[in-house]
């Protein structure tokens, strides 16, 4: 029922997450209109995954509130789950199952049965371009194939909002562009709202309509890529914006490393 859905797909009010003394997310206020591709940037440990986990109901906030697709994540988690898709930071399709089996499992857990399920699963395989390997074990797939499968898997039930945590991490340039195309396609055809996190400045620049840069759990800046660049100077790149607002320095590749301290990346999955 996209027409009756509220115009704001994601909103957070003073959203805060503390781990003991440590504040991972500090009074975040965000509002993402429907149909946007929204990018969440920030150095390692800035709180991007934490934000996504709260919005996908995996994690409880310490204080503040968030609504997704019109429902409060704390009060109505099941209603939120019916309306969202999620692609985690690490490749996490089940390698011991085939592509079809992964899709069927998700479909069944979303209450899709019978002919609808069969149709959706074959659509998803086509969408992911994996028809030829539909019955191969996922552990034999390349990273790009797994990511395409995961995007298809997360959108089987036609969610209103799709969350992707670093969807193109570790993908080659071609695989990366394929994922972008899939995401744009979902936005065009389904009017899906998409929130991604990324360390990839090009991805943020060309894919996202709007960006938020987090730094140490706080919202450092918010705006369209063009507007953010214009604010810094006439020839500024997004990398310049990033450096300015996050206190990080960039490597030549367009990714960056933290200046202050090296973060505990073992925790990446949390």
């Amino acid at each position, binding site marked *: 029922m996209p027409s009756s859905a509220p115009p704001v797909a994601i909103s957070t009010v003073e959203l805060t997450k503390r781990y003991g003394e440590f504040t991972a997310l500090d009074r975040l206020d965000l509002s993402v209109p429907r149909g946007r591709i929204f990018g969440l940037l920030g150095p390692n440990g800035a709180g991007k995954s934490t934000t996504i*986990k709260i919005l*996908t*109901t*995996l*994690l409880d906030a310490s204080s503040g509130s968030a609504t997704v697709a019109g429902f409060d994540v704390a009060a109505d988690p*099941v209603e939120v*789950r*019916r309306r*969202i*898709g*999620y692609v*985690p*930071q*690490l*490749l*996490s399709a*089940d*390698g*011991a*199952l085939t592509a079809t*089996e992964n899709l*069927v*499992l*998700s479909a*069944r*857990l*979303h*209450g899709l*049965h019978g002919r609808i399920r069969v149709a959706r699963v074959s659509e998803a395989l086509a969408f992911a371009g994996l028809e030829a390997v539909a019955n191969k*074990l996922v552990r034999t797939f390349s990273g790009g194939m797994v990511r395409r499968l995961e995007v298809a*898997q997360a959108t089987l039930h036609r969610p209103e909002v799709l969350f992707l945590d670093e969807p193109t991490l570790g993908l080659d340039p071609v695989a990366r562009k394929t994922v972008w195309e899939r995401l744009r396609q979902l936005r065009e055809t389904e009017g899906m709202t998409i929130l991604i996190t990324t360390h990839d400045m090009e991805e943020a620049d060309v894919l996202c309509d709007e960006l938020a840069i987090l730094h140490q759990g706080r919202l450092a800046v918010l705006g369209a890529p063009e507007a953010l660049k214009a604010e810094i100077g006439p020839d500024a790149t997004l990398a310049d914006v990033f450096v300015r607002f996050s206190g990080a320095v960039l490597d030549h590749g367009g990714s960056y490393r933290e200046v202050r301290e090296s973060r505990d990346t073992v925790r990446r*999955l*949390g």
Partner: protein
Amino acid sequence: MSPFLEFFREAAAVADAEVRKLRRDPTELLSRAVQPVLWLAVFGQVFSQVRGIPTGDLRYLDFMAPGILAQSILFSAIFYGIAIIWERDLGIVHKLLVTPAHRSALVFGKAIAAGLRGLVQAAVVYLVAILLQVHIRWEPLPVLTVAAGVFVGSCIFSTFSLFIACIVKTRERFMGIGQVLTMPLFFASSALYPVQLMPGWLQALAAVNPLTYLVGALRGSMIVGGTSVHALGTSFGIMLLVFALLLALASKLYPGLAR
């Protein structure tokens, strides 16, 4: 759709995926069968010879066979926690948890898969028992009772294992705790010796040990002349109660794996 039907469909989806994985990896299933073979073939044979443990009219090997079946159920079900931690590290748990499926259905589905796996394992133990000429009862009712016991027992110990995994969350800690928990469960049960032979404190432990009730149910049904300390209804009643309790606890903790 009724929530009840939804629950079973979701659990069936999880169980189906699990069983597919198990079918692809029969070596794992078979390697878990090695242990009961050794217990029966070596320990059982030797103790039958020396008659060190008084088991009434029963040969010790016959007495022990249901205990070893129960043990093999316990030992393989307890590995479920490792698999769950593995799935957590891979982010598979997170993916299941963002679906609207009932959390209890996700846990129940795993338990069903463990139950089915237990049945395959029981078939292997039966095979070994036949080879060693254990006096097995083949009437339909006793065989079905054993199957039911094996199924429920597997559900109990796999869910227990999942529950522990939700608490400890890392493989290293789980390995440590798994050992610490399974051995006492095994020895404080009637798997290897009649409860009456135990010192009082151990008997008290055995009385609250679900494995004792599983062994009782199996011993009363699997072998010719076997008797159970508890009535069959009592054994199954207690086992189902324990399972319901563990299911409730594990379902409460399972979402915490994503944190």
